């Protein structure tokens, strides 16, 4: 009978805002493409790391922001991705771009398997289980039986790749573009995902698991797959990070890295994909800035800055950007 109800009109309001949004995206992409030609090499390196962090934060956001599962263990996935890439290049001379999918798949499998028992844990208990993973990872990487592959405490040093096809780019510029390319793909995929039936199922589980189950959503399947996909994102970030920094060592991947990603997630906005770029920039630049204010108390200054930010912007950058867009739209209509 419902078929006989007249077809409702899809609101027209969406159309211009969609064009506006795409225009904004293209403009931002153009800026991102021009940036490495106008700034210093070291800043290019830092911007590349912002992108790397952004990919990892998107991964965490898919899990925590969209699916409601907490993780303090994403440093472990980042480490796994980084080591897989480093070992492949070091031991079997893998070309660096080919390490990314391998690292991603390895982390997906590991994350999915970790997600299965984690299904029984909720909220703070899941946070504790993932915390254990984060704490164990650097120690496992240092184990002497694994030293042949992991390099033990020393880690692995990687060569910095040159720009291919004789492109007139510095190594830093080339790595920036390579990372930007991967970042754009990963961002678009994440955006597609959260706007789809799968994304709605993920958010339904976050908002009300009982109702989600009654709507026919297979909670175990979506939760464990989301865990895997989240680990995949973070693992690819780890692999890129290893290539960019040219070095992996156990103590780069402590529990503190998990917290860094979590800070980036909250600062950027939980449940908002573009927030990862704000979050990535924050966790990369603000600690340095804090150190420039006070060397001795940089940690405290950083802490105060986080508190101030949360106080002013409780929903992170997402709240600020949304409010700005709303004001812009209201202005246009007038």
């Amino acid at each position, binding site marked *: *009978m*419902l*078929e006989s*109800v*007249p*077809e*409702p009109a*899809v*609101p027209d309001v969406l159309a211009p805002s969609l064009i506006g949004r795409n225009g904004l995206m293209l403009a931002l992409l153009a800026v991102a493409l021009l940036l490495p030609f106008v700034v210093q090499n070291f800043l290019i390196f830092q911007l590349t790391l912002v992108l790397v962090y952004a990919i990892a934060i998107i991964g965490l956001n898919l899990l925590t922001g969209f699916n409601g599962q907490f993780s303090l263990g994403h440093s472990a996935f980042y480490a796994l991705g980084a080591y897989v890439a480093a070992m492949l290049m070091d031991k079997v001379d893998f070309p660096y771009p080919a390490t990314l999918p391998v690292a991603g798949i390895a982390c997906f499998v590991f994350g999915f398997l970790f997600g299965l028992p984690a299904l029984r844990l909720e909220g703070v208990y899941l946070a504790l289980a993932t915390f254990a993973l984060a704490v164990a990872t650097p120690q496992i990487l240092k184990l002497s039986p694994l030293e042949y592959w992991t390099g033990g405490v020393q880690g692995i040093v990687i060569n910095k790749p040159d720009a291919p096809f004789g492109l007139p780019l510095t190594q830093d510029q080339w790595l920036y573009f390579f990372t930007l390319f991967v970042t754009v793909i990963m961002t678009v*995929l*994440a955006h*597609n*995902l959260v706007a*789809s*039936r*799968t*994304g*709605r*199922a993920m*958010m*339904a589980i*976050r*908002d*009300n698991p*009982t*109702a*989600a*189950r*009654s*709507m*026919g*959503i*297979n*909670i175990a399947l979506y939760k464990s*797959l989301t865990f895997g*996909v989240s680990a995949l994102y973070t693992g690819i970030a780890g692999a890129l990070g290893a290539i960019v920094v040219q070095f992996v060592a156990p103590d780069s991947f402590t529990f503190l890295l998990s917290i860094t990603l979590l800070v980036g997630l909250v600062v950027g906005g939980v*449940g908002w994909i573009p927030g990862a770029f704000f979050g990535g920039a924050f966790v990369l630049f603000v600690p340095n800035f804090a150190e420039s204010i006070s060397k001795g108390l940089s940690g405290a200054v950083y802490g105060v800055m986080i508190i101030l930010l949360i106080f002013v912007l409780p929903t992170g950058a997402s709240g600020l950007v949304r409010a700005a867009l709303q004001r812009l739209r209201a202005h246009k209509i007038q």
Partner: protein
Amino acid sequence: MPARASTSLLSVRDVAVSFGGIVALEGVSFDLEPGLIVGLIGPNGAGKTTLFNCLSRLYTPSSGDILFDDSSILARPPHQIAELGIGRTFQNLALFRNLSVLDNINIGGHCRSRSDYLSDALHLPWTRRAETSLDLRSRRIVSYLGLDGVIERRVGELPFGTQKRVELARALASSPRLLLLDEPACGLNHEEVEALSAIIRQIRADLDVTILVVEHHMGLVMSISDRVIALNFGRKIAEGVPSLVQQDAQVISAYLGMQRT
């Protein structure tokens, strides 16, 4: 046991549920014929919501069986119940509060559409088509229940009565053959209750759905139900047409809090 054709859509057979020694349901049996509106009444703690939770597989009965379309639902995991054709609303609202009205209703249609993780991430043409047709279906339901004005709004910020209606819309989106309504009138004002009884009748007429409704609002139950089942202390104490159940001595004593018989 020889297979026998039955005319009932739902058959509840001798169902018992207990929580750590406390008996919530005991020996409850009844049948629902297709196309009926059946009221489920009883004082607080009578076991009405427990029964609903068994029907949607959130609880598993300790004994007895529940047949839907002549096959037991107890062998099915909870997430397959919607696909079988049993939809429900919840007593205290169980909406996805951070999502829009349309998203909530689309999630209601989850079991009637297909996609997978990878195709969704790649935004493949076939998932786009599935998404468009799901969206269209949901928008029809939105119009059907008069929710057009709030379609893009976040559910959590809507008034209570509107949220209840969104929940109803979400349940309809799964194209149920059996619709379980848990206290649909609870918290609604007089006009909203009037409108609700018209909507429930309209849904039955338009959508070919059987409706089981738990309700404390006697005026509503008695006016819309073809049949009423009364529970008290986890047992069925009466079943029949509303006028008869209303006069049943056990029902009256259950509601007036007189001695348990």
